[in-house]
């Protein structure tokens, strides 16, 4: 690998940086190669490691030292923030005023919908729990009946024991279903909040 190939690799992997930081870094390493001289090219490349490794080191260290510039440079912000801030405030106020007749009911609707969904899920869980309890109760009784019946009628006893095992199976099945459902709901809620948080940024 020669210097040009190396720098091409570095460019590729540093693309994720903001433009200013990217150009800065590329210039630094270009200069470094220049100052090291052609005769030291191989040595420098060996020292730096693969372009991928070097780039990820640079990215990590820049992040650690917190020296990556934000996309809007501070100078720009300073010059425009006053005008823009005021304009934005008026603009947003107008939008809010005009959108209120439609926006407010939609917002309320959304809250109600979420509330109903949560209640539905809770009710469903409750019902499933009750069903599970009933099955457990029936299963237990059947088992006792079956065992006590074995002495008088073997076939009848076995049928009853079978029924009790069947209901036990269903309870286990419901248990698994509930665990799965809980996970799904939990996952859904975290994803939803993540999305909302992201959008607010």
């Amino acid at each position, binding site marked *: 690998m020669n210097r040009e190939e190396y720098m091409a690799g570095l460019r590729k992997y540093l693309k994720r940086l903001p433009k200013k930081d990217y150009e800065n870094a590329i210039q630094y390493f270009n200069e470094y190669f220049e100052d090291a001289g052609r005769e030291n090219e191989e040595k420098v490349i060996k020292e730096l490691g693969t372009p991928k490794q*070097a780039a990820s080191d640079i990215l990590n260290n820049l992040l650690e*030292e917190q020296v990556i510039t934000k996309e809007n440079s501070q100078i720009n912000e300073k010059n425009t923030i006053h005008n823009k801030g005021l304009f934005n405030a008026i603009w947003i106020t107008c939008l809010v005023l005009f959108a209120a007749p439609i926006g407010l009911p939609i917002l309320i609707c959304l809250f109600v919908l979420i509330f109903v969904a949560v209640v539905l899920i809770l009710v469903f869980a409750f019902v499933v729990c009750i069903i599970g309890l009933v099955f457990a109760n029936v299963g237990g009784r059947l088992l006792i009946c079956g065992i006590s019946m074995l002495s008088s009628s073997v076939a009848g006893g076995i049928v009853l024991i079978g029924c009790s095992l069947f209901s036990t199976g269903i309870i286990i099945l419901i248990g698994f279903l509930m665990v799965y459902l809980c996970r799904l709901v939990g996952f859904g809620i975290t994803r939803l909040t993540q999305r909302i948080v992201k959008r607010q940024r």
Partner: protein
Amino acid sequence: MYYPISALLIECIILSVVKDKDSYGYEISQTVKLVADIRESTLYPILRKLENNGFLTVYSKEYQGRTRKYYSITSLGREQLEFLKKEWTIYRDTIDNIIIGVMRADGGKSE
């Protein structure tokens, strides 16, 4: 060098290098490499940090038909260097004294 070197100490070295005369990346790096087994991918972010904190300023100058970035120390940088130097002296003397054997923590008096 056998002992690892901390990023703060490297900051101290960099500031010392440019304290009397402005310098450029490669030169600074060669001096730092006299004491630290450090890669350019670590050194460059430290230089950027010093620049961001206002300890160094950067300007471009023509050199043999190409531009070269020079680093120059600011008054804030000089203050920071004084602080880092003081801390280093304390650190060095303490270790020296422990190694020589003239210093022990009060609680650990030997009989």
